[in-house]
């Protein structure tokens, strides 16, 4: 049982770290808007960098058959 004298303070330290992380998340505004981020994941990979240029996934130049399409990252 003596190990509890170490484990309980340790658990409290961990909890403290969690509270600090939560405080940082709140202060940086991560809980201000909880609805838009849910939509944002829908639009991942809509843009990509090809030869240093940002393009839309539906850009004519990266359609199959165009020369850039072969360099399209998988």
């Amino acid at each position: 049982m003596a190990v509890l004298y170490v484990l309980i303070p340790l658990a409290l330290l961990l909890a403290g770290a969690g509270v600090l992380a939560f405080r940082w998340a709140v202060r940086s505004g991560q809980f201000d808007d909880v609805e838009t981020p849910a939509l944002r994941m829908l639009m991942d990979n809509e843009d990509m960098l090809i030869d240093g240029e940002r393009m839309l996934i539906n850009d004519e130049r990266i359609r199959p058959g165009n020369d850039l399409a072969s360099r399209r990252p998988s």
Partner: protein
Amino acid sequence: MNRTVDDIAPMAPPASFPMEGHEAVPVVGEGDRSSGARSGGAALHLDAPLAPETPCVHCGLPVGPRPVLGAAEGDSLPLAFCCTGCRVVYEALGAAGFGETYYRLRGVAASTRALSSLGGRPAESDALQLAELDTEAFLGQHTTEVGESLRRTQLFLDGVHCAACVWLVERLPFEIDGVAEAVLDLPRARLTLTFDPEEVQLSEVGRWLARFGYAARPMRVQTAGRRTEAERTLLVRLGVAWALAGNVMLLAFAFYAGLDADADATMATFARWVSLALAVPAVAYGGAPFFRRAWASVRLAWRARDPRRLHIDTPIALGIGVGTLHSAWATVTGQGEVWFDSITVLIAALLTARWLQLRSRRLAGDASERLLSLLPSMVRRVSATGETVVARLDELARGETVEVPAGEVVPVDGAVTRGTSQLNNAVLTGESRPVPVVPGDAVEAGATNLRAPLHVRVEATGTATRVGRLLKWVRDEEGRKARVVLLADRLSGYFALSVLSLAALTAVAWSLLAAPSVAAQHVVALLVITCPCAIGMATPLAMAVAAGRAARRGIFLKSDAATQRLTEADTVVLDKTGTLTEGRMTLVETVPADGVDADAALDLAAVLEADVVHPIATALVAARGCPVQSAATFEAEAGQGVRGLVDGHAVVVGKPSWVWAQSARAPAPLTAAIERFAQAGHTPVAVALDGQPAAVCAIGDRLRDDAPAVLRALEAAGLTIHLCSGDHPAAVAAVARTLGIPAERAHGGVAPEAKRAALEALQAEGRVVVMVGDGVNDAAALRAADVGVAVGGGSTASLVAADVFLTRPGLAPLAEAFAGTARTLGVVRRNLGISLVYNVGGAAAAMLGLVTPLVAAVAMPVSSLLVVASSILQRSFPSDPGNGGAGEPAHAASSTSRLAAS
């Protein structure tokens, strides 16, 4: 390489994108209707006109009787839009290569809670507001420095409504050099922009957004920032409280499992001291708001010598305080019981309820601030040399001249010095008919210039204008409005008194029966177990859940007091224009002569009226759709009507007396109809074809379709209905007759200030009055009423003054608000009932000495959970009124998970 605005020029032709659910609509007839029709007068008839309910290709709303057609591509058919704005945005998206992704994403998820009330329609930007974004004053006041050369600002963005909007707006950094980051908060329509002022001007960003139908508006009010800050502070407090409560509970489990001084004295002491160390910050930091409010209420009650003034936080603070002190003493002395777990969980649960309550109000608060950002703050000043320069409103002095182009809002009170135009004063006076103005006429800030540019000599600006005075008055009144005592607060005074007397009784009884230390033990148990956690949560939880669901139905409840007051009301005062009626001129009714096809006759009349600049003509044309023919001859007589030759027919349209003078005698049914229209307050218009009377029609501000049904529902609920309008008494009386409101309760010709007096007179009779209105002219009345309800889609400044506002068009939400709040109050009563039963049981057990920390640790959360369940399972604002609450598991689930996760 980043592309700048100018480089986005057509990369691809405006294409018709293949889209699910938005296929090109088959349109019969080809080519451009307007140009084809105007040339040579050749009649081009649509074989089958586009159905008005066809969805617009861009926004998906019905296109209406007069669709705007896009260019046809090759063999494909032209696309139908509801307005030019939608077509322009559709073509801009295509030109920029965004179209396909945009329309695909839009189909995926649409937010129904977004603040924008435009549906999917593009918002109109105001060039002056964009100009304001570039001024030094704006950069200084509304942007903050981040990093080396970057600045950050927040803008309201009108017109955002779906996932595709988020995607498009957040592409800003890729499209405009100098924009480092763009983050859109969709529900609040708020764009946080990080940019380099050296490299890009905000107006350039605004113009880019305007191309796609988003209007960026400066955020003038700083309270939004303060509210966000308050929400964050409470959330941190909540997180800390739950973390501490969780750990205290963990240690308490050891005690309940049998750890005591006999089992392991060192471990028991250790666990108690750790619990104490954790409970002290939980009480001092987490419980601070309760102690503060309790102290304030004790002082208030003391000054008033009225213990019923004690707030619900007083017994809560008492229970927490006594429980903590006793447990701390028990820890130090090693004697007696500790209650740390119950106390810390209690604090955390109460904070959760408060946070949910705060969160559910955020949208309502944001909406009224967004309105303030619509008022113009920049003007076009005409200098002595006749040049027009854009200047800030507050730089303007009396006697100077400003220019107001057509389509812009008059920014000052003053007199017209040059130009002839028509003004729409609907926001100010509620009068929907445009008012002609000529040099010398007075104009007021807030009116919209409809036709031609005007020069206005400034007489008053800012808060000195009429609209400014009204808004200022609304803000000053804010603190004066009588505080409504919430149901739970009415109970709390009695509750605190009975707990205190029971505690005294317990102390005396147990001192006589046993040792004083035993008595103290039982008194503490009583105070802890009756600590009104469930009562404290009963109101905020029920109200927060109801407010969240109401917001999804387009009903925004600004406060709990308004919610409760709405259920206590016995009188409803309704404004006419824009509230009961649609607020614009439309064709109400047509009566044809025998053997005449009314539609055909009106079509011919619409051709003549198409080029006439007059609200009555506009209403006629709007009702019949865009004419495809043109008149061979055309002649207008001022104030009387127009005549001309259309499609081989001699057509005369105008005032009945003038029209009949040029035709055969009007048959009796037509003259009777004219009589009837005039009595109903409508403007009669006569049409004659080839010298024969053909039809008469009524043009007027039509009653909303749902108005009679809603009024009947309100009357059935026991409310007395009054009409109060600035319109002509005859028109008001006519509406009252139609709706079956007794003439003595219909008041016409009431000035805005007099409306407030009328309301106060009703209140003096002891009535609880709900005012329903729109427009700045109602602002004073909305504020003076016990509950002010603003209707009309949410675009007028009256929302600032209102306690409740409805963003869904029509009156149906009004009936829903009454019914929903009544059910919400039912839930509050049910919650209070549950809590009282628990408290009576708990108090009895404690007085008998049966309550141990373990009993409290089980009983207290169970009572709170019952209240939580009762609040979440309520059916106050069902998403589909016909379907009970079945459509709402999402919100319930998220509330529970929030409670559980913290």
